[in-house]
């Protein structure tokens, strides 16, 4: 409450009004990229600091994966038999974890959309628009911090999986490649989440819309059951669903049972390539749309 007169009187910051023209030369492309990376990192740290100060917001990547894993392993899994050479509960536990990794990808949509609407609702994102930072950095900061929380979610799922008998039967390179594919497509999806966060006005609305997308993409896939038992038209959707491709890639790379390898659909024969194509496609569409939506807010 003390009137803060003394400190400013002793500040000797130079008055730069006349000597610092506002229209300087544009930064070179290299400098621009380095600055974008630096700004993105600062804003990522902002989101992560926020999580550190309120760790209960992390339940969707800590408690939730444990519950999902146990629910599917012991409730639904008890009645699911993959059939043929993959019969038995142990085989289903091996099958399940890659499916949950696939679910993480599509779950990112809601996570990012809700985080984004929360930031929009407070006006903080609007406040950032006045700062000397790149528009993309504000959005990239959001997506990168969601990437970090997704790493945590995957680690929790993997640890729970190890506890119930899931194993990686290949080497560390294959295992890391599988995790890399999951994170790649998750990161791409979070750009779609940014768009949703800016289109919907409240976190509740964004959450509901994301859930409507989450249900068919998450469950009409090979994440939890092989697609061969589904009706034909549903099989086609499931086999071309990128969530199926992520799960099939992980099963291949972990050496887990992968019945989809015998399905005669291009994405199931080349799930890794299909996943990468989806990631590129999603970023190519949604990142520019997200930046456009953010810029447009200034024009009203």
């Amino acid at each position, binding site marked *: 409450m003390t009137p803060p*007169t003394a400190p400013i009187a002793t500040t000797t910051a130079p008055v*730069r009004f006349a000597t610092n023209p*506002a229209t300087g030369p544009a*930064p070179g492309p290299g400098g621009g990229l380095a600055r974008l990376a630096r700004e993105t990192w600062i804003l990522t740290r902002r989101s992560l600091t926020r999580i550190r100060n309120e760790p209960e917001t992390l339940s969707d990547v800590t408690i939730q994966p444990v519950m999902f894993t146990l629910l599917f392993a012991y409730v639904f899994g008890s009645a699911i038999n993959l059939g043929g050479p993959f019969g038995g509960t142990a085989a289903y536990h091996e099958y399940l974890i890659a499916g949950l990794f696939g679910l993480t990808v599509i779950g990112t949509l809601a996570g990012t959309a809700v985080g984004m609407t929360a930031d929009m609702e407070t006006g903080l994102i609007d406040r950032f628009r*006045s700062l*000397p930072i790149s528009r993309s950095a504000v959005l990239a900061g959001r997506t990168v911090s969601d990437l970090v929380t997704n790493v945590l979610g995957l680690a929790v799922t993997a640890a729970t999986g190890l506890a119930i008998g899931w194993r990686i039967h290949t080497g560390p390179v294959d295992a890391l490649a599988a995790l890399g594919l999951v994170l790649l497509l998750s990161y791409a999806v979070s750009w779609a989440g940014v768009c949703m966060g800016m289109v919907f006005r409240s976190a509740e609305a964004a959450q509901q819309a994301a859930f409507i997308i989450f249900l068919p993409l998450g469950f009409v896939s090979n994440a939890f059951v092989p697609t061969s038992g589904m009706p034909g038209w549903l099989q086609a959707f499931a086999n071309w669903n990128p969530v199926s491709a992520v799960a099939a890639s992980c099963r291949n790379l972990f050496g887990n049972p992968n019945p989809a390898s015998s399905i005669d659909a291009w994405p199931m024969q080349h799930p890794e390539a299909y996943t990468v194509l989806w990631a590129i496609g999603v970023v190519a569409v949604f990142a520019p749309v997200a930046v456009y939506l953010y810029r447009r807010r200034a024009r009203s």
Partner: protein
Amino acid sequence: MDLNGNAAIRVRNLHKAYGGHDAVHGVSFDVAPGEVFGFLGPNGAGKTTTIEILEGYRARTAGDVRVLGVDPGKPTRRWRERIGLVLQECELDPNLTVRETVGLFASFYPSPLRVDETIELSGLGDQAGSRVGALSGGQKRRVDVALGIVGDPDLIFLDEPTTGFDPSARRGAWAMIDGLRRLGKTIFLTTHYMDEVQHLADRIAILRAGELVAVGSVDEIGAGLQADAVIRFRLPGGITADDVGAVVARPVELADDIVRIRCPDPQPVLYRLTTWAEGTHRLDGLEVLRPTLEDMFLALTTARAEHG
């Protein structure tokens, strides 16, 4: 436009229409470098629309605007580095501490003020480690002010910076704004506290229904208005208001034994009054009330409203 001795803000014939209705209608003014410019107007006059156009938050319909020589509709990064904003409504991340929040904003500027110094300056020294969500409304406002100045900008927009402050906090904020002025900062200030612009502003502009009704120093606007001073005292016993009116040769108002005489120049009236009263009557509570900015503001914004 170059900046050598020219305006920090130049606005010419600014228009902003919302669906056919002009919220801002042909506004023109200049703000000189190093000046504290007060922007006044009743609610709905177009103050916030104008300041948001200057800040680059809102597109204009027509007119020419230059802020530090740059069109705020086409902002550059260098331009943003030199502008500091204190927005009217800004919710900050409640889960970050004051130091984390100010530090975050500081990290985007090439030569920011020191974070702890800025927090101290804004009167938040004791709250540096508190979460923003735990602060009172006035303390949050001070965080806004800290964020507006931490980049060491040349031009600072303060949109109602002391709303919600208690009187001593307002004095503190005024001292801080005075300090910023001494550093040569240009300050564009909107407020609905008349004493605030009277205390702080070198010049003021008064906006009514999207148009400027006055621009100038407080004294200039007062002179242009020819607002009357008021001489006031308690009516002495045995004297009527008409007696007083005869002495001063002016109309006299009387209410609850208090005499009020309106006059453009109080000196000759006071002379007649005191000469007449000398040795015979006591003029209890004698005082001369100069027109305040509030009086001018009301005169400007209500008198014309009756015509419009």
